[in-house]
């Protein structure tokens, strides 16, 4: 599990400490990853859409949640459970 934002890494470190996040936060300072994932919006000033991706072990996207839906991790957790289940049955 990773959190990604366009903040500088020092800002992310401070943020991680403040909210006590248990997973690593990644800094996409150069906006390369938000662009690669197609969620960078140049029409707004420097804005990336809130989105959650679940990627399986083969590097394939298995689940996408966008906008406010992405705030609720339930669906992402469900997708993870599904992947875990898939693994167990394989």
């Amino acid at each position, binding site marked *: *599990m*990773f*959190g*990604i*934002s*366009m*903040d500088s*890494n020092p*800002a*992310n*470190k*401070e*943020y*991680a400490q403040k909210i006590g*996040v248990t997973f*690593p*936060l*990644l*800094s*996409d300072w150069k906006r*390369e*990853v*938000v662009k*690669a*994932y*197609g*969620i*960078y*919006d140049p*029409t707004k000033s420097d*804005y*990336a*859409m*809130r*989105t*959650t*991706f*679940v*990627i*399986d*072990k*083969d*590097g*394939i*996207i*298995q*689940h*996408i949640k*966008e*906008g406010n839906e*992405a705030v609720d*991790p339930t669906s*992402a957790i469900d997708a*993870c459970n599904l*992947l*875990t289940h898939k693994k167990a049955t394989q």
Partner: protein
Amino acid sequence: MTIRTGFAILIILAAAVYTAAQSAPTQSAAPTKPATPPPAPHTTLKVGDPAPDFNLPSTIVDANSKTVRYKLSDFKGKKNVVLAFYVLAFTGG
């Protein structure tokens, strides 16, 4: 013009003014168009697409106080990965 005629004209005028006032469009509020927000950007990726690789610095530091970088491809064949893109730190996003 006799007084009677003048009076009649006055009444007609008054009636006309009254009717005009009645039929005048009332000061209704301008039709409020629901503010349609600009369409939110959507990811160009779809379920089933390969996830673009990345190599980014993280909030994790190693034993030598060096920032740990994570590469998506490092997890290939090992782990499922959840990527949560959030707006910007300190925005509650």
